[in-house]
């Protein structure tokens, strides 16, 4: 029996070589061109994207603060990932459908989900509160990778409905987007989703935010080659985009979604980005990563580069930025107030809607629970 020291370290190869991601905006805010991808937005649209970035970050910061003050149980910050989420979120067309993880606050924003619903979830008053059909944005999925199969199944349904390709209403059909992380790429479910999507040529885009970390686990523990290349093994295209570049994220996702809706099947988009915050408010990243890494990524901040771009191109002026700040303040104030006012659901609600058609046993438990609770209320009144 060899002794402990004789064990060789498993030779985990060093971080995957950084193949050049699609970029349309440098960290310094210079517009650059790419042979395959471009965006052609109006000034208003450019400002709109920046506005989204700022508001989404503000939501995130306010939520983090609320957690610190004990108003939320936990919060999973998107700090640093705003561009990947806003770019891809805005690339969706109205009928497209998104399947998020637990960190897609920016996408939720683009789909019109009230951020208060997100706060409610992390506060523990609900497990998601919006109507997924109405928002065309599924509930958050916490079990890593599961939603990629749901997205694929949904896309198969789109296909069965004949909603791929040119439609009677003149549109080009519907597409689906599944969000997941670098860590999730290791899950069986995600790879099964790749199998299904490619075999059925389903209109689904797999959008992987590679933020370099899965809690404390670096991406080189999940793959030894760049993640976008995973798609090759399943026979569909993969592309790496600069996830801190909202324009590139928009362009690449838009193209992938349009390909899907036109019947060209799935694409894997790897948005190369960085989780600037902790995994969640419960996490302490100083235990596993160097401050210098964060500093390096700060120079690539998705908001800063868009701001520089707007300034340099004179697309926005100081008034715009001031007004936006004020809007962000107002939004934050609304969220704070809304969060503090949030009421807990009625306890007995936990028995409701377990099923579409409830069961006698559950009704019995609910009745017993209510009687018991009422007894307490009475007892309380007497004392």
């Amino acid at each position, binding site marked *: 029996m060899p002794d402990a020291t004789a064990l060789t370290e498993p030779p985990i190869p060093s971080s995957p070589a950084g193949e050049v991601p699609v970029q349309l905006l440098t960290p310094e805010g210079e517009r650059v061109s790419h042979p395959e991808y471009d965006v052609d937005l109006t000034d208003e649209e450019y400002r709109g994207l920046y506005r989204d970035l700022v508001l989404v970050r503000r939501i995130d910061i306010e939520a983090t603060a609320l957690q610190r003050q004990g108003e939320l149980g936990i919060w999973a910050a998107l700090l640093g990932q705003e561009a990947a989420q806003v770019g891809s979120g805005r690339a969706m067309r109205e009928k497209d459908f998104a399947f998020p993880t637990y960190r897609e606050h920016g996408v939720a924003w683009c789909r019109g989900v009230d951020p208060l619903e997100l706060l409610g979830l992390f506060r523990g008053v609900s*497990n998601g509160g919006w109507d997924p059909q109405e928002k065309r944005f599924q509930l958050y999925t916490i079990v890593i990778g*599961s939603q990629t*199969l749901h997205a694929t*199944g949904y896309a198969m349904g789109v296909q069965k409905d004949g909603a791929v390709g040119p439609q009677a209403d003149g549109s080009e059909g519907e597409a689906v987007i599944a969000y997941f992380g670098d860590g999730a790429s290791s899950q069986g479910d995600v790879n099964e*989703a790749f*199998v299904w999507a490619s075999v059925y040529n389903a209109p689904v885009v797999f959008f992987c935010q590679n933020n370099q970390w899965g809690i404390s686990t670096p991406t080189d523990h999940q793959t030894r080659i760049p993640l976008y290349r995973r798609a090759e093994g399943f026979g569909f295209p993969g592309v790496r985009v600069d996830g801190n570049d909202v324009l590139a994220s928009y362009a690449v996702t838009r193209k992938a979604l349009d390909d899907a809706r036109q019947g060209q099947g799935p694409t894997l988009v790897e948005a190369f980005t960085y989780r600037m915050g902790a995994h969640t408010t419960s996490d302490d990243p100083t235990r596993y990563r160097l401050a210098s890494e964060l500093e390096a990524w700060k120079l690539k901040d998705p908001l800063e580069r868009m701001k520089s771009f707007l300034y340099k191109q004179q697309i926005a002026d100081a008034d715009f930025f001031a007004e936006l700040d004020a809007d962000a303040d107002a939004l934050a104030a609304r969220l704070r107030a809304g969060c503090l006012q949030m009421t807990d659901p009625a306890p007995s609600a936990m028995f409701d809607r377990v*099923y579409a*058609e409830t069961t*006698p046993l559950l009704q019995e438990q609910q009745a017993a629970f209510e009687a018991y609770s009422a007894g307490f209320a009475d007892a309380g009144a007497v004392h």
Partner: protein
Amino acid sequence: MAVLTMAKALNEALRSTMEDDPKVVVMGEDVGKLGGVFRVTDGLQKDFGEARVMDTPLAESGIIGTAIGLAMRGYRPVCEIQFDGFVYPAYDQIVSQLAKMHARSRGTVPMPITVRIPFGGGIGAVEHHSESPEAYFAHTAGLKVVACSNPVDAWSMLRQAVRSDDPVIFFEPKRRYWEKAEVDTRAPDDPLWQARVVRPGTDATLIAYGPMVRTCLEAATAAEEDGRSLEVLDLRSLSPLDLPSVVASVRRTRRAVVVHEAPSFIGIGAEIAARLSEELYYEMEAPVLRVTGYDTPYPPSRLEEEYLPDLDRVLHTVDRSLAF
């Protein structure tokens, strides 16, 4: 009225719900051209096309996971798991997604999915082809779990399961697939969630479901020769459990024996024993006894007859009950 095997009755049930509702889709391994390894989906792909009867890739988590997505899009998937022992790769999707989606979404995302699982032993198969995993699912809030025991129920229960807006794990006793009965497809359905007294009796109640119903009926017939009158109750639904019917029967007979192939430890029998001992505390003449598979992995098939409850073990246990 036609005489149908259970497999054929299930097949007809699928066909009829597919005709009634274009959103019903069938999916699973080999359910298309082959018609499933037990031929329950025989001919459906031919008649309804590949878009509605899908031979899927070989991955159970993928089957349930994509069915969930299809349900979100308004479809009503009926998934086939090829054998009981192959449902576990899909366990996460079943337990964490399928079961919880309705509650999670406060009812905005219903899961009208039926998961058909041929289950149980007695067919001389190799490992993983003879299991009885029903307790795993019945213990899971958010799922409904049923088991049919005869062609008539197979027909009416499957139709109701497919029409249900809740996820239903539908267990089919594979060794009874070839048993025949007259099935009146125009008769009104017995409600899916109700147990049924399939043989009335007075001295003790045998409580069973799926493959063991017939075993209990045979035991009751044999017992009759010894002058003992055994009632046989077919649970049909395991979750929700039709406790009122169970209680009503045992209140009359005052003795109960639960029979299932699944291991005893924390099985359905335990729950029934716990409930009855509470509900009929002053009324029973003996504790609820159990005749079940042993708490071992399912044995190699040459030993399965020793493992599976049979007429003799049932009667032996009835004797024990009567001796209290």
